[in-house]
């Protein structure tokens, strides 16, 4: 397949693997966090772990919006969908995410709630237009990548004077979560977070650019390499990180230069800034409340804000206390270290955030990589 196979070439991959092998200092350990779920998925799907030396370890970060969505927000969405006038428009991967007591949107749909899977924000607008007697609510979720399409749709709804379209906003931001991982007070209870550098997000960085990561290099002393999602991108980014560590450099480097610039997509950023504003704090599954990490609609656009329109009240659900997602997301534990992993917590019945979507650290390891645990612990 053109424009994809070129980035999955085995010979080039082996060359990069050899370079990492020869340049990585056997006397030390390299710990890199790939923030993004897309990277986590690629690592597992292409078996990248097998191509890295033992002392280069990848830590799977919290960059999967479905995984980090707290169960309370799912409960809120279910409550909304159960209102007879509401058609809740959601992306397919949200359907199975468990709220409290194992209830999901899929189960709510089976019980009669009108929940429809959409593939783009435009579908939600169309559903609103086709069902003027109903209220179409778009369950907006995602990082900086998916926020601009939501903004564009709100703009479009405004132009079309659609009064039966609104957005349940769960958009979150990458840099505050990265900062939280590095400085959260929680780390005292779970041990120090040892990360030498970040594999920076691909699509998120197309929007925000490389600039917002400079603080992590300058103030936190961490190396950052923005990487594409293809496996060769990742191998190259890891090599670049190894070199930064070897040369005692903390820079923001851009491996994904075919798509990412320093300032990102100005138009998209402006559109988002026009419509959204920061929440004081937003809850992340596994991380808890992270200051200034979530977006909500500005007062001017309150008529498109489902939380306002339907006077939705905030619901909170505590995660299973045995769940180690918080430690796994910070790289202090591996999925296999969690007592719940693969026992009561599987992709069919996820308990913690990392098992929820295929991009979560635990789900990716369970689906693609659990054969490696055989050597570590008998079944």
């Amino acid at each position, binding site marked *: 397949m053109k424009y994809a196979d070129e980035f999955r070439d085995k010979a080039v991959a082996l060359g990069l693997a050899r370079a990492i092998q020869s340049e990585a200092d056997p006397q030390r350990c390299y710990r890199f966090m790939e923030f993004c779920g897309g990277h986590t998925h690629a690592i597992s*799907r*292409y*078996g990248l772990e097998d191509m890295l030396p033992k002392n280069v370890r990848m830590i799977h970060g919290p960059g999967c919006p479905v995984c980090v969505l707290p169960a309370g927000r799912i409960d809120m969405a279910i409550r909304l969908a159960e209102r007879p006038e509401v058609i809740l428009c959601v992306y397919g991967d949200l359907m199975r995410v468990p709220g409290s007591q194992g209830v999901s949107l899929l189960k709510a749909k089976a019980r009669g709630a009108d929940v429809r899977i959409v593939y783009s924000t435009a579908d939600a607008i169309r559903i609103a237009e086709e069902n003027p007697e109903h209220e179409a609510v778009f369950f907006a979720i995602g990082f900086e990548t998916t926020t601009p399409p939501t903004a564009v749709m709100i703009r479009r709804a405004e132009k079309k004077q659609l009064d039966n379209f609104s957005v349940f906003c769960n958009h979150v931001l990458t840099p505050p979560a990265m900062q939280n991982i590095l400085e959260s007070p929680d780390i005292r209870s779970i041990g120090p977070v040892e990360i030498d550098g970040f594999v920076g997000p691909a699509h998120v960085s197309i929007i925000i650019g490389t600039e917002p990561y400079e603080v992590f290099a300058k103030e936190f002393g961490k190396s950052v390499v923005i990487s594409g999602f293809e496996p060769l991108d990742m191998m190259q980014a890891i090599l670049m990180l190894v070199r930064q560590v070897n040369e005692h450099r903390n820079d923001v480097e851009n491996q994904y230069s075919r798509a990412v610039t320093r300032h990102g997509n100005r138009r998209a950023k402006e559109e988002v800034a026009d419509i959204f504003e920061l929440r004081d704090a937003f809850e992340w599954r596994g991380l808890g409340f992270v200051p200034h990490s979530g977006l909500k609609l500005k007062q001017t656009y309150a008529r498109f804000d489902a939380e306002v329109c339907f006077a939705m009240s905030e619901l909170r659900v505590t995660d299973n206390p045995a769940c180690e997602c918080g430690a796994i997301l910070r790289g202090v534990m591996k999925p296999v270290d969690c007592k719940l992993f693969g026992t009561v917590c599987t992709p069919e019945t996820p308990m913690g955030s990392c098992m929820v979507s295929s991009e979560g650290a635990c789900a990716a390891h369970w*689906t693609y990589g*659990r*054969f490696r645990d055989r050597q570590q612990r008998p079944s």
Partner: protein
Amino acid sequence: MKVHQRKLDLKQGCVDLSHGSGGRAMSQLISGLFHEAFGNEWLARGNDQSAFDVGAGRMVMTTDAYVVSPLFFPGGNIGSLAVHGTVNDIAMAGARPLYLSASFIIEEGFRFSDLKMIADSMGGAAQSAGVHIITGDTKVVERGKADGLFISTAGVGLVPEGFDLSAENARVGDRVLISGTLGDHGVAIMSKRRNLTFETEIVSDSVALHDLVARMVAAGGRGIRLMRDPTRGGLAATLNEIAQQSELGFSLQQEAIPVKPGVAAACELLGLDPLNVANEGKLVAIVSPDVAGAVLAAMRAHPLGRDAADIGEAVPDDHRFVQMATSFGGARIVDWLSGEQLPRIC
């Protein structure tokens, strides 16, 4: 006195509740549309059942319900699919398919013209598969109680003497053969789904495989341990199922698994893995290594097996993992899909 009955208006008309009521209208629908399409001596006798001779050997029987959406898709429709799917389930026993039954649950308001097109393609599919649809049933439900049309078919076939294909026959070292490219049916269906429409030249691979199976049986005989058609859940689900039942693992080579570029591209866009995507005209065979070459050659000599490939082998594994060496150079598990990839694919 001859009672005048208005002919079925096959161009403009549609099914109403009277066509399921057991009265004249139903009889007219059955004789005017279904018998026309399936025409054979058994149906012509008009009994509530059909009798047929049983040959020597063992019979196999299977049944399947078809709820595919949309009803018409590139490369076929629910009618041809309802024949191919059941014929293939019979063929996977190494059996020769003989007779089918067909039940129709039709939503009030369904157009005769569509029903005729579907029945005709069922008739055509049955004819080219050498099977007869010898009994059937029709029910009409109120508008909104079924999505247009659901079909259920059952079938019987005859297994060659001494043949008993089953997962427990598989042994360590057996080869895994597939008959062609993966994911065509699922991608063809998805390309026509509301909300998801995308342009692709991919058509469904829906086809009857019994003739290919007959060639394979002739070439491999009892060296063929078992065969399955990887429909819903794709190759991944089928191999995991076989691994569980045979208490073995499988080791696959991604580079050997044929996937059309169009299917690979669509899967890339939709975030799917072709190994999880449904097929309706492919089979996977677990065969003893000493006949694998001959069976593969027989498959490749058949038009439905041109792209057949040897993709891996059965290995000892207490965990029953299906593992794959990726074309990138790493290794990974090929797991069952969690949850539903896309409902109503067949």
